[in-house]
């Protein structure tokens, strides 16, 4: 076993898990400027919907992933329509507190609906792939592929589609885009739904990779915020992907070569040091007039 190569493969698996959560938050945070702390609960909902469909209803795993995505997208729409749309005009603190309260509510809804006992979903592809001395579960490889495709599709939507043009306009200046004829309410709702669907995808895929419990989304969401903070408000999606990979590599190598107990501390210490060095994040176009998505 080549330990370093295996650790890099481990980092790739971890990066896929982080990016799956981050790409949805990227849309919601960078476009709509909503610090949605209930994002982790949308991720958990994706996992629990998948559990319901696969374990309780006996549906096949992969079609259930699509259904789970759709269910989380609908939940996202409801959350945007009835919570965030009403809060957005009242300042960042209202949105922040609203999203924190929503997170707690959703956690309790999950606990009351599915219980607090950790549960799991059977792995649909239990085989393990051996690439030389490196071993990766077939399912992990599939998740990595799906996440790459999701990132590429999101990139295409944001940077090359007509909807993306409106979306980027909204990200740069909400008022001006409205004057320019962009239906900001519709674009905002659709963006929130898309971000939620991607998060639902992440949750549904994660259901077979670990245990489900109501707080399962907390840490991945925290890391997603770290990635977005490091990249900076105006950062483009490829920078987000690079940031996710960098954090996963740092965390894995710290755990493998320094101490597993230090992995989180090192990531957050580096975040603090990085923000002291570059408070705007890696991409310095955070100012409104220079913001690009």
């Amino acid at each position, binding site marked *: *076993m080549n*330990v370093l190569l*295996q*650790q890099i493969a*481990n980092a790739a*698996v*971890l990066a896929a*898990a982080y990016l799956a959560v981050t790409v949805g938050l990227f849309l919601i945070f960078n476009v709509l400027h909503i610090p949605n702390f209930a994002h982790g609960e949308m991720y958990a909902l994706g996992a629990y919907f998948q559990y319901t469909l696969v374990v309780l209803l006996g549906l096949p795993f992969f079609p259930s992933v699509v259904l789970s995505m759709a269910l989380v997208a609908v939940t996202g729409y409801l959350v945007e329509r009835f919570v965030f749309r009403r809060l957005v005009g009242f300042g960042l603190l209202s949105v922040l507190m609203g999203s924190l309260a929503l997170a707690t509510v959703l956690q*309790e809804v999950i*606990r009351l609906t599915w*219980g*607090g*006992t*950790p*549960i*799991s*979903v*059977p*792995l649909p592809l*239990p085989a*393990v792939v*051996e690439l030389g001395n490196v*071993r990766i*579960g077939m399912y*992990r490889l599939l998740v990595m592929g799906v996440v790459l495709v999701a990132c590429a599709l999101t990139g295409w939507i944001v940077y090359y589609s007509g909807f993306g043009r409106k979306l980027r306009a909204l990200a740069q200046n909400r008022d001006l885009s409205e004057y320019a004829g962009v239906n900001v309410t519709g674009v905002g709702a659709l963006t929130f739904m898309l971000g939620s669907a991607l998060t639902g995808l992440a949750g549904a895929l994660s259901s077979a990779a*670990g*245990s489900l*419990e*109501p*707080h*399962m989304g907390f*840490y991945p969401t925290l890391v997603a915020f770290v990635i977005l903070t490091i990249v900076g408000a105006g950062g483009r999606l490829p920078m987000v992907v690079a940031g996710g990979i960098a954090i996963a590599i740092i*965390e*894995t*190598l*710290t*755990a*493998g*070569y320094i*101490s*597993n*107990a230090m*992995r*989180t501390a090192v990531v957050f210490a580096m975040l603090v040091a990085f923000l002291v060095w570059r408070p705007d994040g890696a991409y310095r176009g955070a100012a409104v007039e220079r913001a690009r998505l």
Partner: protein
Amino acid sequence: MNKCLAALVAVPFALLDLSGASAQSAQQTESLRVAQIAPLTGSSADTYGASMLAGLNCVFDEVNAQGGVPIAGRRYKIDYKVYDDKFRADEVQAAARRALNDGYKFIIGPIGSGVASAAQPLMARSDAFWMISPPSVPGPTRNPNVFRPAALISAYSEATLDWLKAHPELKRIALITDQAHTGLVSAEPDLVAGIKALGREVVIQQKSKLGDTDFRAPITEAMSVKPDLYILRVYSVESALMTQQIRELGGKMLVQWNAGVGTADARALVKDLSILKDVTQVSPLLALDVFLTDGNKLAEKVAACAEKRKGNGSFTTAGHDTAVIFLEGLKRASAPTPDAMIKALAELKAADVAGKTLNVYESQDGGLVFKDREVHVRAVMQVWREGAGWVRTR
């Protein structure tokens, strides 16, 4: 005239006071208030909280149905109330403070090592009687008002070392310990010393923390030093995740859990049970599984009650045995007070509880159950058997 007026005013107050006292007295003859501190919410609520409370309250409800527990010639029903600590160190102090502020003098819980450690300062400051089970962390019982009818953390190490003696082929041992599990952390130096004293090599000692989900990096590191046995000294969810990831990364070594997780909970946590092949678990018997496999009739009765409460799980046995010992102490107390309870438990004989508890409480100091407020209960090595779950092994 003034004296008459004073008497007129005083009489109703005196009557009021008397009626209050008699009402209070009547209430005391009817119930003994017991606070229970356990997770009702959070990730450990159903795994640990529900099963502990089911074990406890099956016993309390049964004794209440029989008219209550006799204390110094009077019968008291157990009036219990649960305070939610979410199994978190930051929540348990608030829960314990609420119980004390509500006037409870008898407290059962907290039920985890980390939370028991966190509540220790309140135990030390309060005049209430505390019974903690199954936390195995040393410390709380240094307070004269805290009793633990559960195995000490050293029981895990003793059983592991006994088992290793019988398995000389296991020469290279790897350990990973959850730093939030204060009991296992405190026992690590003795365990390592014991392993080395057996002539085995501790090839790696790793740390983890509660809530970790990705263990590939430490597993890869551990596999690089080729251990024969990987001892996972972590809680249940992490044990399941680690085992899954060990097998995925090609780890074929023996794996040992220290989580005290019952068969049903293991099945809920691990969908592909084939990964539990060659997995052992060392733990005091906190769940009913092994007793049920042994055909124990008392366990069958407890299981029937616990299942009605959806609480036949990881800590049902711990809850049952704690309640039995609590009641046996009360029966021998001269009054329903913490001081009388402390004296009664200090004099409780192992023979007094034999056959009433599921675990065997070994005699200490001439037949006593408690020595320095601790019991002697052995941990048991179990192995996962397909179809049966956890069964005893040698």
